[in-house]
Each structure stands twice: as C-alpha cells, then as structure tokens.
C-alpha cells in the first residue's frame, strides 16, 4: 500500500477528494488484514468500514510518528478486536458456524515468494487460520503475517507481553495441529 505523505496531509486538512483517494488506495490492504483477523467476509467488511470511520475522525491526531500504513493497520486490528470482543459479549455466533461458512476469497497480486508457494498450500493455511479461535487467530496474524511487535499486540489485547507470547505459541501449536491434522504439511513446499 502506497500512500503519499502529501495525500495524508491534504486529507488531514479536510480535503474531501484526498480523503476519498486515501480510502480508495488503502481499502484493499485494510480489508485484507480485516479478513485475516476475522476469517470471514461479512466481519471483514464491518471492520473495514469501522476502520475508515475511525481513521477519518482521527486523522488530525495522526502525527506521523509511525508510517501511515502502520497506523492504519493498528486502527484495523483495534477495530477487529473491538468487534470480536462485542461478539463474545453477545455470544451471537459460535466458532463452528464461522468455520462451516468459511469460503476462501480470491487472493490477488501475490509477491514473488508467494507466487513460488503453491496456491494449494496457501489455501490450506488460510483455511487453517479460520479454524483457530478468534484470540489465537488475532495474535498469530498480527505477529506472523504483519510482524507487529509483541508489545503492541499485548497492548491491543490488554494482556502482558509474557501472556501474549504464551498465546502466540499456543496459537502456532494449534495452527500446526490443524495443518498437520489434514496431512498437508508435507505438501507445503517452497520451490
């Protein structure tokens, strides 16, 4: 995702066109992270919408200490976590329902390394991620896909760094169990 500083500054100044362009340029990245975190299209959509509302409301508070994309990802993960926490409180949807209705969406524009890995292995990984609990998924996606530091993930989840590591390790174990469970591990080959 490339968002020029000038565009961010114009959007901060309230330029409607700049805001629109900002959303246009970053919607795919935000949606992708939202999808990886929530595991389904409907929630990813809600999270993306909530993210951009928060981003536009708080643009003036963005000081540029981190890159705009880092800030955007942070707001996205926060929106996703808020949605999941609300859902948990309501106990509206079970994990089984989520996994039953899971359909991998079309992934686009793979990088060189991603292209070298069979799409089958990626599909199985994405499917395996959707089988993790929300707590496990959020920590493993933030760390292993987006490379957030432990401290930031811990702060997001409202837990200590040690507890965050324990959760990450457990999530990796479960992910491995799911992947190995379907006998897929040996097929995941990087060419």
């Amino acid at each position, binding site marked *: 995702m490339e968002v020029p500083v000038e565009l961010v500054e114009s959007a901060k100044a309230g330029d409607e066109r700049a805001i629109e362009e900002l*959303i246009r340029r970053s919607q795919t990245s935000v949606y*992708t992270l939202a999808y990886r975190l929530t595991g389904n299209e409907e929630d990813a959509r809600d999270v993306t919408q909530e993210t951009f509302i928060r981003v536009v409301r708080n643009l003036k508070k963005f000081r540029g200490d981190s890159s705009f994309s880092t800030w955007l990802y942070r707001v996205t993960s926060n929106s996703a976590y808020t949605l999941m926490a609300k859902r948990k409180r309501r106990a509206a949807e079970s994990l089984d329902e989520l996994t039953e209705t899971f359909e991998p969406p079309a992934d686009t524009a*793979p990088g060189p390394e991603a292209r070298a890995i069979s799409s089958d292995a990626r599909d199985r*990984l994405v499917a395996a991620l959707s089988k993790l609990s929300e707590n496990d998924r959020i920590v493993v996606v933030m760390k292993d896909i987006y490379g957030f530091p432990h401290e930031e993930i811990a702060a997001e989840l409202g837990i200590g760094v040690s507890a965050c590591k324990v959760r990450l390790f457990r999530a*990796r174990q479960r992910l*491995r169990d799911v992947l190995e469970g379907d006998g897929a591990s040996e097929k995941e080959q990087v060419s």
Partner: protein
Amino acid sequence: MECAEAATALPGCVEGDLPEDVAAHLETCIHCQAEAVRYKRHARLMGTLADQYVEPPADLLESLLDSVIEDRKHRRSVRRKAAVGIGGLAIAAAGTAVGIVVHQRHKAATRGLVEIAGNVIDAIRPAGTSDLVAS
C-alpha cells in the same frame, strides 16, 4: 528434558526465542528438530500472506465512502447543534446575569429610597412622637 516439556516453548524457535534448556534439548533431539522445522515453515508461509491481498467485494468502496461521508455530516450536525446549544445557554446565562444585576440595583435603589424616606420622616417628626405613631 523431555520432548513434552520442550513442546510448550518450541514455537518460539521461529524468532529464536528459546529458553536455554529447550535450545540444548533441541540440539540433540531429532523429533523436536523436525517440529522446529515445521514451525519455521509455517511461519514463512504465513509471512507470504502479507503480500497477498484479498480482493474486497466490488461494492465495498462505494459503501465505505457513503458511510464516511454520512459520519462526517452527522458529526458536523452534532457540532453545529452543540454550538447552537452552547450559544443558547450563553444567551440564557447572560440574560439571567442581567436580570440579577437589574434586580439587585432595583433592590438597592428601593432600599435607598426607604432609607431616605425614613430620614425625612425622622426629620419632620415632632419631637417626642414614637416610631409607632410615625409609621
């Protein structure tokens, strides 16, 4: 160390975050080495997903723009209402303050008149008459 003991900490091998005893066990245990290779392979596979975008639904952009515009309108309207409310409160407060001042002055003026009248009465009252007679 047993493999079962090492298993809990083994996923830390992805970033090289292993306690000393687990790292030592890993040196000599083929089973745990194989596990570590799996964790690293999965993590590498996960990392490739960062570059791989999920295509958003076709109508998402339009609905995002609509919701952001709607939210901005709503917030502007709330701010305007709040400004009007604050303005109204300020006017009401100013009116109340003026009323209080006028009332106080009126009271003071009335008190002054009463005092003057009292003094006049005292002055013209024949000596020896009581307050009761004067009132």
